[in-house]
């Protein structure tokens, strides 16, 4: 049988206005940071927003948000209601794994993903950012094929030749999968990738410059919301909400 869980996942996500799946075939480009900052800034502007961490092996968004495992609390109401921090709805598997190492084979990761997508009730959010693990593996294929129509791909890269070389293949793959609009954010850059991204057929939404403040703001929401790159984050956010 086709997996019934996917049907509820589609139903739940279709109630959200914008669901962006944050992807990068290259590790270390800042996907989790970008996902978290965008969701956090949106919620601070009064926009009902969500952040879903689907990196089961190396989840880190709770560290960025400064949440201890025991602080992450879900409610049960016809499914699972995400943790709330202000207007930000948040879900991560660490509430169940206690942040212990979790080694999952592809099929198990795919099953965990289906379970989470089908049981979490996000409600009528304006914006959901879905953080994914680096690379292109079973979880990515599952999301990109099974949830096509309710998600938008948001590719992140740094202005490094290695990152770009890798991401170019991802953009091509997304196009082959039928995604006509592929969104792109340059992290830790200054606009170097604008031409390359457009030539590759991605929609360049902007860049977030490298800032030393970030490392010292990890785990502190107030400081994260006052980063010296906040103008850049807000500009990207504005575009995300208007696509």
């Amino acid at each position, binding site marked *: *049988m*086709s997996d*019934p*869980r996917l*049907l*509820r996942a589609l*139903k739940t996500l279709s109630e959200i206005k914008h669901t962006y799946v944050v992807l990068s075939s290259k590790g270390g480009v800042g996907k989790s940071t970008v996902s978290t900052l965008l969701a956090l800034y949106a919620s601070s502007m009064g926009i009902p927003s969500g952040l879903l961490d689907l990196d*089961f092996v190396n989840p880190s968004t709770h560290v960025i948000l400064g949440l201890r495992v025991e602080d992450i609390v*879900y409610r*049960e*109401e*016809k*499914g*699972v209601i995400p943790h709330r921090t202000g207007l930000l709805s948040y879900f991560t*598997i660490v509430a*169940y*794994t*206690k942040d*212990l*190492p*979790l*080694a*999952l*084979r592809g*099929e*198990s*990761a795919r*099953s*965990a993903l289906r*379970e*989470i997508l*089908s*049981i979490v*009730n996000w409600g009528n959010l304006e914006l959901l950012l879905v953080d994914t693990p680096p690379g292109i593996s079973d979880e990515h294929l599952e999301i990109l094929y099974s949830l096509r129509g309710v998600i938008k791909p948001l590719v992140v890269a740094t202005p490094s030749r290695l990152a770009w070389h890798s991401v170019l293949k991802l953009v091509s793959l997304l196009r082959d999968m039928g995604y006509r609009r592929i969104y792109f954010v340059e992290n830790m850059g200054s606009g170097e990738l604008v031409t390359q991204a457009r030539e590759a057929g991605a929609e360049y939404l902007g860049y977030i410059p490298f800032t030393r403040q970030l490392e010292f703001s990890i785990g502190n929401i107030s400081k994260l919301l006052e980063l010296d790159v906040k103008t850049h984050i807000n500009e990207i956010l504005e575009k995300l909400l208007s696509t």
Partner: protein
Amino acid sequence: MVHEWALAESIVLYTKQVGYTSIKKLRVTIGVLQSVDKEILEYALRELAREHGVRVAQVELVDEYPLLKCNVCGFEWSISPSDMSEDIREAVHFVPEAIYAYYKCPRCGSLDYLVVRGRGISEVVVEPYE
């Protein structure tokens, strides 16, 4: 209403998708690891079926007992939720794959094993009216 509601809704959406609106028997196989409350699941199935315009005469919920197999040494074993602490049982109830954070192969200590069966809902069989 609890998490079982979400599981039930997936099943009801599935019966609709495959085109059944009048069902003689709905048979659902559930992995014991997930500690699903069958009474609540059946109640949710019936309520949601009614909401979605699906008529269900009989609901049959069948247990599937866990079987785990080590990918390193090939050892096979089983785990019962009653042997788990409350915290772990609850984690596995919501996301059965959380089990991989807490258990190792009892023979070789490997973390690389597979829940072959008994993790969650594994089969939905719809018997329609003629």
